[in-house]
């Protein structure tokens, strides 16, 4: 994982679960995978509520997941989340424990 990808993926994780949840250096493959699932769920939720973005889709292999999450993370870091706040909150509650497991490599 490249350093700018780590930075953008940590932006996604901190967007969902709050600043300080992780740092770029701590991001691992498992955390990227959970962040991908969370983004997919939040985008699907937002789309279902007639909010603009459509869910991204594709085969969630390791490199694909990292690229996608990093891409969205770059947008989030610039303040462009395009996710309905209520969907972000629901998704954060749904995936919080899974993310904590992934952080510990469990």
């Amino acid at each position: 994982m490249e350093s700018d990808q780590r930075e953008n993926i940590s932006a996604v994780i901190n967007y969902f679960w709050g600043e300080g949840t992780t740092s770029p250096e701590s991001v691992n493959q498992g955390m990227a995978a959970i962040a991908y699932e969370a983004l997919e769920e939040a985008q699907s939720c937002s789309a279902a509520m007639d909010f603009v973005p459509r869910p991204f889709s594709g085969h969630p292999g390791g490199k694909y997941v990292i690229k996608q999450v990093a891409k969205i993370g770059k947008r989030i870091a610039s303040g462009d989340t395009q996710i309905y706040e209520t969907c972000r909150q629901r998704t954060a509650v749904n995936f919080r424990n899974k993310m904590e497991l992934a952080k510990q490599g469990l």
Partner: protein
Amino acid sequence: MKRAILLIALAFASLSAYAQTDQYITAAYAGMKFQVPGSPVVVGSLGVNNDILLIKYSDTIGKRWISFGTENTLETGGCGWSDFFEATVSDTAKHSCSQASVASFRHVFVEGAETGVWKIEGKAHYYFLSDSDSSFVFFESNNGNLIKLESDFLDSDGFRRVLGDI
């Protein structure tokens, strides 16, 4: 020969008796006690505030776990917890909670899940059970916190046993 068969039968009987007595252990969380399957491989507290109790049964990453977490910040669209969860698990559109709050919760937790309420010792436990993903049970603890019980492998009976309903 008879003696060997007798010895094997005795060994099986001893093992199953041992397995039965060792089948469940007590987990304490948020001032409450729960019965979880025995022989975990990892037990730990996780989360930024260490408010998640994890009990894991496999060495495979992300597989076979039970967790207890506190979710007091769950946004309920202007309702109390019980009214909010009643609105999410019932088919009726009549409720006083924000429509967006209920709709978003339904999208994330209810779609594709078996949902309902278990009354255990007079207290409502709202369940959202999925065959393909994590399942959840939300309930209020004795000290007034909203608890999220989650597992990637427990079924309906498994959850009810953890909650002391079986």
